[in-house]
């Protein structure tokens, strides 16, 4: 194999290098491409701020379905004889403390998510009081697990705010929280519809 030395004078001796050296040093495009590229980047940034759009849509769909089903159920159900009152007061005294999941500053959950959840929470609190104590304890314990997960994801999002995976996990965590409330509310149906 022939090796061409690259000292300054060698290109004068080698015809191929001599030809190459006569090629233009840069090639200008026939038109300025940057404005079109900049416009596309700008559009993309506007439409997809994060890889978050479709999970948000899924979450919103789930939320609407859950809240709608529960509100319908709430309107349709028979009024039970044991409403609030003594039962709730008695049960509340012994129940473990329940705190809804708090999502940190890096978690991109909007006000609308939290507002919808708060509406569900009203029914959840009533049903939670009516569950057997050990089940109530399990529910509260699992809400604490969801809280821990939400906090861990929030801390991770602080390091990598644009992570599609973390944002998906955050939404799954939020959905799990809602599903837990939903399970308790619908399960309480068996207790509430009494003669």
């Amino acid at each position: 194999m022939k090796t061409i030395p690259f000292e300054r004078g060698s290109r004068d001796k080698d015809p191929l290098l001599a030809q190459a050296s006569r090629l233009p040093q840069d090639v200008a495009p026939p038109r300025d491409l940057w404005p079109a590229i900049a416009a596309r980047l700008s559009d993309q940034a506007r439409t997809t701020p994060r890889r978050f759009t479709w999970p948000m849509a899924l979450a919103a769909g789930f939320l609407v379905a859950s809240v709608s089903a529960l509100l319908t159920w709430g309107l349709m159900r028979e009024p039970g004889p044991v409403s609030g009152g003594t039962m709730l007061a008695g049960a509340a005294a012994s129940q473990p403390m329940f705190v809804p999941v708090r999502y940190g500053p890096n978690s991109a959950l909007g006000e609308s998510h939290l507002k919808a959840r708060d509406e569900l929470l009203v029914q959840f609190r009533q049903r939670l009081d009516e569950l057997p104590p050990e089940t109530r304890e399990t529910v509260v314990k699992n809400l604490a697990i969801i809280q821990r997960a939400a906090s861990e994801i929030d801390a991770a999002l602080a390091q990598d705010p644009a992570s599609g995976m973390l944002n998906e996990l955050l939404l799954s965590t939020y959905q799990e929280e809602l599903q837990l409330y939903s399970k308790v509310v619908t399960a309480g149906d068996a207790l509430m519809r009494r003669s």
Partner: protein
Amino acid sequence: MNNRMLLVAATSLLAFAPQAQAAQNLSKRATVAADASVEVSNIEGRVSVTAWDRNEVELTAMLESDKDTLEFEATEQQVRVKVIRPKHDFRDSSDAILTLKVPQRARISAQTVSADVTVAGVKGEQRINTVSGEVHTQAYDEPVSLRTVSGDGTISGTGGKSAVSVTSVSGSTDVSGIRGGFDGQLVSGSLKIDVAAAERLSLKTISGDIDARAELAPAARVEMESVSGTIGLRIKAPVDAEFDIESFSGEIESCFGPKARDKNAYGPGSELQFKQGGGSARVRIQSMSGDISVCDH
């Protein structure tokens, strides 16, 4: 009574016994369609449903408390059985034991609070919701859905192509012998599944552990995600799939294919993307801090 018409044996059995706490032993029977819907609701105790080769529903009930009421309503297409407790007192732990015989193709909907549910030989669709009861059932070809808060569960498949779904808060659930699709979600607890010819697997957990064995059908889709729970996926060889695995701070291990690598030199996260065989199936797994392992044996 004409069974073709709205047959109602709407019998509210307010069988108050003369003495307090006397148990009530009750039985009811109704002729129904082969695929009738049977809805059962119980608070504490047990629900046992067994299939038989008659187009009839037979209920045998034992209510420990004389204050409980049993509601039994039947039409040709639908049977409703419900234990009603006038005022729920947690200190009163009286059981209601419901034993049902139903047609093989009956569709079951069971809702319990602290009652165990056992279903055997029923080939129709099943929807079982419990708060803290245990559930044991079988899956044939029709969908089986299990929702629990704290109860454990087992779903034993018989090799039929049934869409099985489990959502559990903290129980331990074991699903085996099913084909086709599976959908599982859990907060804590554990989920163990074994699926043949899997076309679609979707598994999500917060801190619960998932142990999945699967034989993947061509073009199968597998989606698994976890916040802090561990995910184990064992795929029956030969593996023909494309893998996309990512974790923020958990470990990724695979007993075949390349090793996981850091997502970038200075930040957290590791990932593993590769194709095994022709790559016809798609496997996507992600976790925040949970460990992920994939193996072919």
